[in-house]
């Protein structure tokens, strides 16, 4: 697993208070991990902070699973 995937999963576990085993790449933040719409906004902010990257709102809307986040950050995080 890449370093980025590791860090993304850690953030998801911390922010959503879910067990690490549940946080696989297919996990949907809302449907599988119990997040609400505000939680997803905060998650995206946490990714921005951790990876020092700006995630525009239209890009944020496409990040609905753990895998989406990892893919976006692998492509965009410097």
């Amino acid at each position, binding site marked *: 697993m890449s370093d980025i995937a590791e860090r993304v999963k850690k953030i998801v576990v911390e*922010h*959503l*208070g879910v067990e690490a085993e549940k946080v696989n790449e297919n996990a949907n933040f809302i449907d599988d991990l119990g997040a609400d719409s*505000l939680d997803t*906004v*905060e998650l995206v*902010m946490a990714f*921005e*902070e951790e990876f020092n990257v*700006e995630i525009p709102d239209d890009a944020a809307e496409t990040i609905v699973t753990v895998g989406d986040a990892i893919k976006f950050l692998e492509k965009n995080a410097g």
Partner: protein
Amino acid sequence: MMMLRRVVVTGLGMVTPLACGVEQTWARLLAGRSGASRIESFETSDLPCRIACQIPRGDGSDGTWNPDDWMDPKDQRKVDPFIVYAMAAAKQALDDAGWHPTGYDEQAASGVLIGSGIGGIEGIADAALILRDKGPRRLSPFFIPGRLINLASGYVSIAHGLKGPNHAVVTACSTGAHAIGDAARLIALGDADVMVAGGTESPISRIAMAGFAACRALSTHFNDEPTRASRPYDRDRDGFVMGEGSGVVVLEDYEHAVARGARIYAELVGYGLSGDAFHITSPSEDGDGAYRCMKAALKRAGLDPTALDYVNAHGTSTPLGDEIELGAVERLIGDAASRLTMSSTKSATGHLLGAAGAIEAIFTILAMRDGKVPPTLNLENPSIETRIDLVPLAAKEKRIDVALSNSFGFGGTNASLVFARLP
């Protein structure tokens, strides 16, 4: 005109500087314990007041406060502590009342009215710094919903499925009493059968302490002897001691409570409100606002002032306020002063601002239940002579059938609640 329904108290819950829990707090209050100590959680060296009455933190045993017992840690992170305190007090009160509405009709008839004086002021201060230093994109989506005062009622309603009236009161240090009084009216008028009502406050932060110090409201001469600082009616008093926590009661339509066999603590027979129209922080010198407020509550109760056995005073330990309230009570009760008992439990708990009226309503009810009057701690040398028994230093026994609790707030806002023992 429609008939007003009778309103009774069927559940109690509290988190206070004495303990987490009603019975633990009450036992320590009667034992003469003080909740005051030095503030260690933030820098106070540049503040004139470096003490407060703080909730005893711990693992949840022996009356200590463990927030994880009351709210999921991931939700605690999103809110200021006043909401967590309210969640704890509300759960205790609902459990105590044995009221856990399940069906649609029961849920729709059960509401929440919990207020706060200053709500999430600390979270607002933190967010302002983030906005300045990092810009608007770094503000959490939980910044607003975690600071709004009515979100205490919101979180409680969500946790317990309470779908009736959802409301909040903000009247500074009268908040808790106004919340209980207004909630009772919602029941009396038929808007709800059950109301979860009270106040909550988390004001022990650098910004709130600095702000209240700036208006010269806090005690400053007892930083080395915290437990001696809150001393209502004593000649050496020099301001109030900040307190934190929450008090919540379950109020219920009398018939509803009887029908389900609920234990009834007391009836809320009177509620009075008034305004001073005088000054933003000082009470009117003639005490007329306080007098009219108590008078209105007794009128609603249909009782003569001489019926009062006990008054839980607002009594904050400020140089001006204590004597003004005492004068108003003397004017109210006249020659019956010598049989009245009145104490200030803020001497032990400090001043919980928007939660004060709620925890003091609970103390008033418990005094009635047990026939025990909590003391006014540190009242060593009264600054004024009175025939009213101010219960200095130690609790005492007294049968109480009718009792009144006073709350007065910045802005000149006053509330009085009158409770009576059911025959």
